């Protein structure tokens, strides 16, 4: 099982790195989906099958599909890819790389110092998660639903095109 974890981690990291550097939006999206699938495998090795399934269904299956739809709608084309190449000059990378590198170093330092531990190895399935959700975390569920309602209303309002008004004399 441990080997699966490490392989999946490697895939996730590589595909995320590739995603960041692509020029075509669709290519990047596909790499992102691969990354998400790899993360799902990682979840399974950690003993969270329910979440692994949800990652695939919702994250990769709904959110990423939404991204794909929007990119297709925009219909960017080849000329957008050329524009992206012009924008991605090597000099652009130095600042962010330094910043992220410092952050990474800090986090590594913190993690190396800690004692850590290991996962318990037990599988906590949907039953356990459900009991927790509708027990102690009930209010979180309600809040999440309100958040989703807000997102729904917002997206609807933003997407609504106004019909051109007839001229009023």
């Amino acid at each position, binding site marked *: 099982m441990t080997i699966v974890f490490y392989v999946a981690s490697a895939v996730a990291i590589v595909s995320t790195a590739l995603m960041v550097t692509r020029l075509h939006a669709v290519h990047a999206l596909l790499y992102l989906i691969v990354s998400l699938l790899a993360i799902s495998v990682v979840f399974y090795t950690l003993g969270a099958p329910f979440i692994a399934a949800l990652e695939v269904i919702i994250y990769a299956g709904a959110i990423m599909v939404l991204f794909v739809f929007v990119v297709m709608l925009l219909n960017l084309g080849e000329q957008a890819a050329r524009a992206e190449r012009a924008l991605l000059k090597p000099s652009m990378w130095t*600042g*962010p790389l330094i*910043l*992220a590198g*410092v*952050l990474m170093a*800090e*986090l590594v*330092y*913190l993690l190396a110092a800690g004692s850590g531990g290991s996962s318990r190895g037990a599988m906590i399935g949907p039953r356990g998660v459900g009991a927790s959700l509708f027990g102690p975390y009930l209010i979180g569920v309600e809040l999440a639903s309100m958040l989703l309602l807000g997102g729904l209303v917002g997206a609807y309002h933003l997407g609504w095109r106004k019909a051109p008004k007839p001229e009023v004399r």
Partner: protein
Amino acid sequence: MLELLWLVPGIPFAGALVLAVLGARMSHKSVTTVGVGSVAASAIISILIAAAFLSAPPAGSTYTQTLWTWIDVGSFRPQIAFYLDALSLVMMLVVTFVSFLIHLYSAEFMRTDEGYSRFFAYMNLFVACMVTLLLADNLLLLYLGWEGVGLCSYLLIGFWYQDPVNGLAGRKAFIVTRVGDTAMAIGLFVLFHSLGTLRIQGLLHAAQVQWSTGSAYAIAAAALLLGGAVGKSAQLPLQTWLPDAMAGPTPTSALIHAATMVTAGVYLIARTHVLFELAPPVQFAVAAIGAATLLMAGFSALTQNDIKRVLAYSTISQIGYMFLALGVGAWGAAIFHFMTHAFFKALLFLAAGIIIEALHHEHNIFRMGGLRNELPVAFWTFLIAGCSLAGLPLITAGYYSKDLILWSAGSSAAGSTGLWAAGIAGVVLTSLYTFRLIFLVFFGPVRTSVTRRPGLAMTIPVCVLALLSIVGGFDKAPFARFIATALPTLPEAVGGITETLSSIFAALAFLCGLLGAWFVYQRNPSLATAMVENPAGRLLHRFWFSDWGMDWLYDRLFVRPVVWIARVNKADVVDSIYVGLANLATFCYRVLSFTETGKLRWYAAWIAGGAVAFVAVVMFL
């Protein structure tokens, strides 16, 4: 009758208010009625009060009328109260009567001026403030009147304000007297602090009880009051404003700068004589200042060519005589000289006004001449006044008063032969410049022709004053007896000069001056020009013409440094602190506004950077 005392300053004050508020809308005739009438009423009431006072003197020969409490703070309760005794009665009489004559005169003199009602408003206000000053029961009310007359003096000197020279003269007068006023205010603080009251009689009594002769408090208070008196009375070293004050109309010069306001310093010293008696060094300083000023001003008067400036220096010189009398302890003599001086000096100015108007505003005496036959009224009155000023023996008032001063200076305990000799030299100078003036203006060929003869309103006052200049001195003995009820008399002569000897010398000095003037200006006019052409003569002439260089000195000492400081501080050091703060805030704003680029990635980068820094802080601290 004595209860009407408050009307004496009250009526002119009301007149001034009416003229100030309604003057522009009143007719010429009603302005004249209000302006002259208010002072006439004041004079009539003063005469009635004097008659009542003399016929039935109240207890202790003093009368106090309290109107209301002015300020009421803890133990400080000055009141609006008037105090009438021989000293204030005499001065009130002289001031109101001479003011009435001058107001009558100016009804004709200023008749064509467009600021006619404004002039009378200022003059009425002046009379009100001057009488308040004289009648004040406490030093705070006296200071109110003091400041009031200073204000009216400023307003009237700069009366023709369209010419900036007049405004400058008014400012100079105000600022120089302000120096003296500040000293006086500090003196009031010292007096209140140590004696606890400003009521004059109470204060003098407490000073006698608490302070020994020569104590530091007495010297300080007396010296500060002397500072105020020196400023208002134009004595050394604050005399530079009076010659320039001649920029005002001639009636103003007659009233304020000859007869009344400039004698306020004399009144102050006479009123607070106890303080000066308690401080012998200061009293000696009074005499010394008087002697020095009378000589200095006499020399300066010899060289002037503006008729009013000669009279201004003459005023400075005569007030020097009054200070001399005060300094040797001859209080009554000083007041007597004040009275006669008011008569003949006001007359001199009014007659000069007749001449100036007749010659269409010509002031230069070297352009006048031969007016003896053209303006007989002016000639005879001017001659009488000039003889009184110089001290023509026996028939003029000035002779008696000046004689008394000279004898007191020579024979009293505080006097000395030196002071007496200075006085005699002053008589020579006075006679010299007076007759120089008379010979140049009234004798010789006519250089400017007469365009206008004076009317009745101008002739009557000068004739009345001429009469007073002659007979005013005959009441010397009754006057001395009367004034002794308010002021201490001089102890009997301890030796030195006898009265007769002093009189003879004074008469000789008068003759010297007369003959000298006649010789130089009438007989050999070329001698005068020759004296000035001579290099030494020219230097002296310029030196004395510019008032012994005092204007130049003050300009270098005080005016230039202050103007330099003002110019250097044009950027205003104090202000730059506040402006600097504002500039700092603006600078910070400009620096911070660089962070608002509007670029999304820039903001994201800063957020990330902040998070990284935060983690680092948590890690290492």
